[in-house]
């Protein structure tokens, strides 16, 4: 009797262990697929010119060199592109947060007449294919004399981030109980004060989500910037980087150094607020 239970138990643990094999394999595959390319960019950026094109690849740089970064910042236009990208991304983020917060608060919290319909249109506008709008957008911006300006590109970025962000904030706003408003009103707080001092702090994770989304969007945006910005001195990083690649195709170390710096801000930002962001996206999508 005892031996039977024992053998059954050992059978179960064996099966349990074997059952874990596919999962472990899946984890390894997933990690390599997702993190492998990131690792490869990073170490390639630190490799010397000869080592990077060796026929047997080294998985760890034999000699760490900063020469790629030196060349990137000293002899290419990279610093200019970096500055432009920071200007565009930060401005877009600030404007998007204001616009989408105001819109979401108005639509979902205050009882504005027809807010249901407006909310539907907001989402609908997001469904319109952005890339197919390049041509008419170009004419619109030309009419406003905003071609080749950072203001123009910010305007376009905000137009594409704000609808989605407004919708994302919906879930967060619904999560704040209405009774709080009433309690605040009883305590003598006006609508503005209620919004700024009571509801807003509760929406901080939502605001973080929206800020990250719009920063990442404008930092990585390629298509509009490539057409609406003409002069090299105003170009953002994605276009600048692809130009550098064109010039230095042979020098992969330099290209990797540039790539590393291009993705670093979004990755670092994400490691700080990523948890809020993932949570925010889930709240937004499932409610």
């Amino acid at each position, binding site marked *: 009797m005892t031996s039977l239970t024992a053998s059954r138990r050992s059978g179960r643990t064996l099966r349990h262990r074997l059952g874990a094999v596919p999962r472990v394999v*899946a*984890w390894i595959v*997933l*990690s390599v*697929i*997702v*993190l492998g*390319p*990131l690792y*490869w*960019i990073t170490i390639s950026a630190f490799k010397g010119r000869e080592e990077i*094109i060796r*026929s047997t*690849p080294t998985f760890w740089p034999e000699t760490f060199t900063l020469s790629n970064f030196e060349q990137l910042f000293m002899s290419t236009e990279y610093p200019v592109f970096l500055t432009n990208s920071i200007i565009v991304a930060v401005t877009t983020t600030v404007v998007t947060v204001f616009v989408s917060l105001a819109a979401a608060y108005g639509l979902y919290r205050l009882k504005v007449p027809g807010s249901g319909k407006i909310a539907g249109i907001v989402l609908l*506008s997001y*469904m*319109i*294919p*952005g*890339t*197919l*709008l*390049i*041509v*008419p957008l170009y*004419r*619109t911006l*030309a009419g406003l004399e905003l071609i080749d300006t950072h203001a123009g590109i910010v*305007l376009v970025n905000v*137009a594409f981030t704000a609808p989605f962000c407004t919708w994302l904030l919906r879930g967060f706003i619904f999560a704040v109980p209405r009774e709080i408003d009433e309690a605040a009103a009883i305590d003598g707080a006006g609508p503005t004060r209620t919004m700024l001092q009571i509801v807003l702090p509760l929406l901080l994770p939502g605001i973080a989500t929206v800020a990250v989304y719009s920063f*990442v969007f404008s*930092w*990585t945006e*390629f*298509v509009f910037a490539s*057409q609406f910005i003409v002069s090299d001195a105003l170009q953002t*990083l*994605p*276009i600048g*980087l*692809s130009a550098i*690649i064109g010039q230095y195709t042979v020098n*992969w170390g330099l*290209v*990797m150094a540039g*790539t590393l710096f*291009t*993705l670093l801000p*979004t*990755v670092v*930002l*994400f*490691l700080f607020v*990523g*948890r809020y962001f*993932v949570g925010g*996206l*889930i709240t937004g*999508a*499932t409610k």
Partner: protein
Amino acid sequence: MALVIAFPLINAVITSFQDQRTIGSPAEFVGFDTYAKVLGDSAFWEALGRSGIWLVVNMIVQTILAFATALLLQRSTRWSRAARTWIVLPWVIPTVAVAVVWQWMLNSNYGIVTQLFRGIGIDLGSPFGDSAVALIAVILVNSWHWFPLSAVVIYGALATVPGEVLEAAKMDGAGAWRTFWAVTFPLLQPVLFALALVGSLWSFNVLDTIYLITGGGPVGSTTTMPVYVYDTAFSAFRSSQAAAASVLTVIVLGIAALLFVRFARPKEDS
């Protein structure tokens, strides 16, 4: 928003009825002539077909990857918890960086992936330069870029499935596979429906990934509809034709979306 989205849309329709070449140049009203020209252009139909392939294969690859990932993330092990943060990294990497790193890793001489495959006796050649496989290669890169987003959304939806329901299914003797199809999947349907709709539209409109990796080539083998429109407007300088193609595409997408909503929307009462 009205200024930047609604106005250009109306503008596109007007332009499509004209014969404009370079953007902003004077043009005359020509009615449906431009449409006739676009519909008669075999490149338009090829691009539309390629976009169809692009959309379907992308959705299949991404759904499988995203579902598998979401199921892994759902476990409460330390790995799963840590992965919930880093899994999204491919999505936050700028497209230009995605394009560069894959071109580098698949470089026919020095690429790490090429060399690893050569090590086990498979010659990858240069996938982005071969018109037979370029489209598939770019689809895989695009899927790498986008699947984490779907994975996270599906993971979030999985978390909303009540534990008691799964427990009850287990008590009734349902295996993991059956539980998934009979319990979890139906509960996930509304989220999956929204994801499929929004995801398809996003995916259809991808331009930068394709443009940065292959530029639509080799010999047009990766020219999907957005690439076609972009090239027609900014390389061939036929903005009216580009606008007409845009309008036609929006109509096709609209009909497809309506059909999808009509037939795939989860029933409210069941």
